[in-house]
């Protein structure tokens, strides 16, 4: 074909312009700042041509074409603002307003009345713009204003649709809907979730999930992408309803999982009022999951945020000044021998916090008793998991892989951005296979869903590993799929080159997990596949790199590495005797009884206080009944500068978007102050940048604080972790006596030791932590109603949880998530279930 000219000449409003071929008239106009009113068009969505507002006159065309859908052609003569076109546009707006609660838009007093609005009604009925959450941000308002609609020539109807408030996170008032279809296109084209669709016809046309189901029932991921593009007040975030327009935005890194999405925090009056996806083509590509999109404001703005330091005094808690708090801490810490001190720090903290924490333990306390309890999340599978993490490939490889195998991965809520990548991959023709005991979104959309019993993943992987190693006669285990299908899948995997294996959290907590992950490792090697473990903790890799573990020094070196120790002594200008006595967060009493336990961003265990003196540094007071001796208010990730290292090994910036509440301070700063008070040198940092510089001297990949390298760094871990022995036992299945298999997993959606479900209303609904999930038929047979307390008894424990019906689970299987320091054993655990009469 003949090479075509890349541009065409068009005449818009008597001016001639050259525009790229393939542009729509709207794009051409926007390029030259010619205003054409629009409502249904959106830069991220395909052209729709529904609202008709963008009509223009094109010479030679019979009707008025819509600018947003009509491509430019050579010599086109376009008029954007003729009297006729304007009159048609006004008619459109009048038609919209004739079914919209629009009194404010055309009210003479509209500028004046704001002052007299005494109350804000939180009623579901929107009676006019001033009561609409979108007031001031509404695109309909904007075009009405621009086109100057003065009156509506039609009677005004209220559609009288019920406002839908039953789902978490956002409400829907379809009385305000203009059917622009943006939400539908977003859900269908961009998220590929297909929850929303147009329903019915004519004047009854409406959008929403099919069959009048709720969003929860219809598989909605609560990614909020639809909410973000709604031009009107129809779809609105519950938590942000009356916050109005943001004043500032700050891009930062999400702190809720190891994907590390870039979020644009919405800021008003020094408060974070929301989070919207930011573009980062390498990571989240303009998408977020429910946590990043909806959970931040409620989490960081909770009324119980710690604002001042306080101490326990005669059984009471009294506010003290920072000066006194630092002095008290320093005094207590100075009393400790190295093995009488312990420091636990959350891997939700920034890399800089983590670095300072381990330096504090090692330099100020001369102790190696520093740990990140994230290790407990991985339990006995930790070493096997780290071996996978060392092989981690960037998420972007999913975009090229011809076949993707997912194990233990559920992307409905957490990590739904990965779910989107998987669906996109399927659209471009990649095969997606998932192994998971539960029926969930991914299971339903993947090409093949292999459903083992909990813990049976290993046998399937074993089969794949043997098959791909050339043992084609290996016999597959029994699953929902036939042996022939499994063989076929194994063959597909073997033939594909560039397979990627995604590892979710739900394969980590079986007694067999170490072996399962080892087989997975082998399979990956057979296939030459990239592995992408998706750690639950946003800065787990950072904590490994910084060495906040008794076994590790900064840079991934073993703490037994003499050479490394020498180097560190030089940089830190100190003498350092490592202790390796088996102490860690799963085994706090391994050494001497602790005089001081310093918890940074970690929850308190519920039993006896594990030390004489407890320092608790966090953003909320502990949920546990134990009262710390000293409580220090810390900054949340929205209030501090620093970096995170995500699961791929990518260093990402965290920005202080707002000030911490009250007197709260970033963790590193508190630590440095205490160290200085103790008279220790090497903690004179005045900002994070200086800490980062020191890290850069010790660990690769941290050279530039302001512009961290874009590529993911690789991870090497020297030596092995000690696996905590406590709490683990082999269960002996006894099907008669214990008819159910319990899968008790550590709670995954946690920030600084606080489950999101305990701080965010909607998260409580979707995550349903510390609730026993059970197949509805089983539950009914046991004569249980949803919410009933049930007693779960095993050989070793008896627990009571409320029950929730979950059709996703097979019969005979029950599931619960609990705080990781309250884990009760390794799964699956044979149990008896009966209604509790407590």
């Amino acid at each position, binding site marked *: 074909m003949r090479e075509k000219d890349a541009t065409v000449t068009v005449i818009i409003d008597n001016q001639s312009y050259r525009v790229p071929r393939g542009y729509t008239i709207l794009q051409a106009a926007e390029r030259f700042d010619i205003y054409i009113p629009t409502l249904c068009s959106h830069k991220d969505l395909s*052209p729709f041509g529904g609202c*008709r507002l963008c009509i223009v006159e094109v010479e030679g065309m019979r009707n008025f074409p819509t600018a947003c859908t009509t491509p430019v052609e050579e010599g086109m003569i376009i008029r954007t603002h003729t009297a006729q076109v304007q009159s048609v546009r006004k*008619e459109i707006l009048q038609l*919209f307003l004739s079914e919209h609660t629009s009194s404010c838009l055309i009210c003479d007093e509209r500028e004046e009345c704001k002052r007299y609005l005494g109350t804000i009604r939180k009623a579901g009925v929107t009676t006019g713009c001033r009561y609409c959450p979108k007031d001031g941000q509404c695109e309909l308002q904007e075009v009405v204003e621009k086109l100057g609609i003065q009156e509506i020539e039609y009677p005004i109807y209220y559609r009288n649709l019920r406002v839908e408030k039953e789902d978490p996170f956002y409400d829907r008032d379809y009385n305000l809907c203009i059917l622009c279809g943006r939400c539908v296109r977003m859900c269908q084209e961009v998220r590929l979730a297909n929850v929303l669709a147009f329903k019915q016809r004519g004047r009854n046309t409406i959008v929403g999930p099919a069959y009048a189901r709720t969003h929860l029932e219809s598989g909605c991921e609560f990614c909020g992408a639809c909410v973000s593009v709604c031009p009107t007040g129809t779809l609105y975030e519950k938590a942000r309803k009356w916050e109005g327009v943001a004043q500032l935005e700050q891009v930062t890194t999400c702190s809720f999982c190891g994907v590390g999405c870039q979020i644009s925090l919405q800021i008003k009056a020094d408060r974070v009022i929301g989070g919207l996806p930011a573009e980062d083509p390498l990571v989240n590509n303009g998408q977020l999951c429910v946590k990043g999109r909806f959970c931040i404001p409620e989490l960081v703005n909770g009324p119980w945020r710690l604002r001042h330091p306080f101490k326990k005094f005669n059984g009471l808690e009294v506010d003290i000044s920072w000066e006194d708090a630092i002095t008290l801490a320093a005094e207590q810490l100075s009393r400790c021998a190295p093995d009488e001190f312990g420091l636990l720090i959350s891997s939700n903290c920034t890399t800089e916090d983590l670095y300072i924490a381990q330096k504090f333990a090692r330099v100020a306390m001369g102790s190696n008793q520093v740990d990140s309890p994230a290790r407990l999340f991985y339990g006995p599978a930790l070493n096997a998991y780290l071996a996978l993490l060392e092989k981690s490939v960037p998420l972007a490889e999913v975009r090229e892989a011809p076949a993707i195998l997912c194990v233990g991965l559920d992307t409905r809520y957490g990590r739904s951005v990965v779910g989107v990548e998987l669906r996109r991959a399927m659209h471009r023709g990649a095969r997606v296979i998932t192994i998971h005991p539960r029926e969930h979104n991914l299971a339903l959309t993947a090409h093949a869903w292999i459903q083992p019993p909990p813990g049976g993943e290993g046998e399937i992987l074993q089969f794949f590993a043997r098959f791909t190693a050339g043992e084609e006669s290996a016999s597959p285990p029994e699953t929902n799929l036939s042996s022939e299908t499994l063989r076929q899948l194994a063959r597909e995997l073997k033939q594909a080159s560039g397979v990627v294996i995604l590892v979710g959290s739900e394969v980590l907590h079986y007694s067999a997990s170490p072996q399962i992950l080892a087989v997975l490792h082998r399979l990956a090697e057979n296939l030459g596949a990239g592995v992408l473990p998706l750690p639950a903790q946003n800065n787990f890799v950072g904590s490994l790199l910084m060495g906040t573990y008794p076994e590790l020094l900064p840079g991934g070196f073993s703490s037994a590495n003499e050479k490394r120790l020498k180097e560190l002594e030089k940089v830190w200008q100190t003498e350092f005797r490592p202790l390796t006595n088996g102490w860690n967060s799963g085994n706090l009493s391994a050494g001497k009884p602790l005089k001081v336990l310093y918890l940074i961003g970690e929850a308190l265990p519920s039993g006896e206080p594990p030390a004489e003196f407890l320092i608790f540094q966090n953003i909320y007071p502990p949920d546990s009944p134990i009262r710390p001796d000293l409580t220090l208010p810390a900054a949340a990730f929205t209030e501090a500068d620093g970096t995170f290292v995500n699961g791929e090994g990518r260093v990402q910036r965290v920005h202080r978007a707002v000030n911490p509440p009250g007197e709260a301070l970033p963790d590193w700063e508190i630590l440095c102050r205490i160290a200085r008070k103790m008279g220790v040198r090497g903690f004179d940092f005045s900002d994070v940048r200086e800490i980062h510089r020191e890290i850069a001297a010790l660990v690769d990949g941290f050279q530039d604080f302001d512009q961290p390298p874009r590529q993911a760094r690789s991870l090497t871990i020297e030596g092995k972790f000690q696996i905590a022995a406590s709490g683990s036992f082999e269960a002996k299945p006894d099907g008669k006596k214990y008819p159910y298999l319990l899968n008790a997993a550590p709670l995954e959606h946690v920030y600084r030791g606080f489950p999101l479900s305990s701080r965010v209303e909607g998260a409580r609904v979707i995550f349903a932590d510390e609730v026993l999930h059970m197949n509805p038929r089983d539950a009914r047979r046991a004569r249980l109603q949803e919410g009933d307390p049930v007693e779960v008894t095993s050989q070793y424990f008896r627990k009571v949880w409320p029950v929730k019906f979950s059709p996703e689970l097979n019969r005979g299987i029950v599931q619960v998530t609990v705080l990781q320091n309250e884990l009760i054993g390794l799964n699956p655990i044979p149990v008896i279930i009966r209604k509790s009469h407590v």
Partner: protein
Amino acid sequence: MVSSPSEKTKIVVGMASCGIAAGAGDVYNALKEKIEKENLPIVLEKTGCIGACYREPLVEVQTPGLPTVIYGDVSVKRLEMILEKHVKNGEVLANWVVKGEGIHTSEDALFEKQVRIVLRNAGEIDPERIEDYLSRQGYQAIRKVLLNMKPEDVINEIRNSGLRGRGGAGFPTGLKWQFARQSPGKEKYIICNGDEGDPGAFMDRSVMEGDPRSVLEGMLIAGYAIGAQEGFIYVRAEYPLAVKRLQIAIEQARERGFLGKRILGTNFSFDISLKLGAGAFVCGEETALIASIEGKRGMPRLRPPFPAVKGLWGKPTNINNVETFANVPWIILNGAKKFAALGTEKSKGTKVFALAGKIKRGGMVEVPMGISLREVIFDIGGGIANDREFKAVQLGGPSGGCVPANLLDTPVDYESLNQTGAIMGSGGMVVMDDRTCMVDVARFFLNFTQEESCGKCTFCRLGTKRMLEILERITRGEGKPEDLDKLEKLAYNIKKGSLCGLGQTAPNPVLTTLKYFRDEYEAHIFEKRCPAKSCRDLIGYRVIPENCTGCTLCARVCPVNAISGERKQVHYINPEICTRCGACYEVCNFDAIEVFSPVELAETVDE
């Protein structure tokens, strides 16, 4: 034709949906049973719609030695008589004959002015037997095309014939094929649009039921011409008989090698499958139809790109109407010239219409283009039912318009009809008499379109609803002087600003009635009067004392007891109670009840 004596009697029962609805199934079964039981020397067959739907069930009897005749209104009882008199005794029952050689019937005009191309086989063959079709040159056209013609020749032949799309817009079919052929790409599709969403239209159904293979053959030829490998027939699920017969025809064609791989030993492979639609009007619009076949919501999208460039699954697609395809084999066999000889300069061939409404002989007719509306309605259709006065004819269904009496001589061709404000459309022709209120007609059609709007674009979704509200107001006598301007302005904007044909044509019924019957609108608004005396809120019923015999019949049928009066005394209708249901008017045997409008007249009578 006179059958030769050596043959058995052959009886053909019209078994299209219209016939079955009228009881043809019973007739067929009774006959079958009788033949078997008494071992009669009769060959029994069924066929599609013969065209005189108002006289169904229709039965054709070919007895050796007698002229072939078609009997109308055949019941099981009449059938006995026919067997007895006609078959056994050789007596033609002239009174019941609808059509018969040498027999003059009241229905002659129905057939005389028709030219049957599309319906050439309908009513003549058993649509469930491929042999019948083959015996009437069936699949000869595709043979000719595959063995002797290049795709370009086929396209030229169709272009020369002047065939235009029968689905509504009248786009030249050959040109459309050419576009699809020129579109780059290996994968291409043919779609046959059998959605037929216009209320009251059943032409396409009759073709699919009566002669499904002509459609298949037309699609095959189109497939060869544009280079497609696959075809779909989109037919509404409410047409179960059409679905069944198409299915049978497809299977038989596959068995005989007219569909499938390497058809007739050539390199041409083509297969056809059915897609059932849920019956939304808008799904007849081509882009919505394509979305629907793809499994999406039937919602139109903007053209360009046209389906010929980007259609089904993004591939070049040619979409034509059922009737369009049914013309194709005939054109190939008889030549473009012969087809072009029929009709006017720009509209060639024939068009099938469904005649309905206040007409004597409703049914399906195929007429040459260029015939006048008057001929169709008065000669073929026999004029207005009950010999009332002709008022208007609605053409083109909800997208069309009303043509008044003074335009009755308009020739039936695309351009002339467009000039009146109506359209050819898919062939619906609803005749109205003086008792039809034109405001109400506009309201009826607008109500239909606004309910069928897919809801995508603002004008069509909300604009038609606002128009409808105004019309409803007017028919209730609550119209305002400015309403007519408002209607016209909205109508203009909706036409100009809607995305697809549904919205762009939805105001047509309103615009044409406003153009030709503005006085009726004005009477409603300014005098609160409905000239057709049909709008319930504007009329009243009263007894004409001179005619009333006091038979009490009206009082007995009145559902709300609004009528009082002693036996043999003049009755009285209480306007306060009367709900204007018209029951009394219908039953009175003495024309003693009259309708009046406006309602105010009631008082003057009371005094």
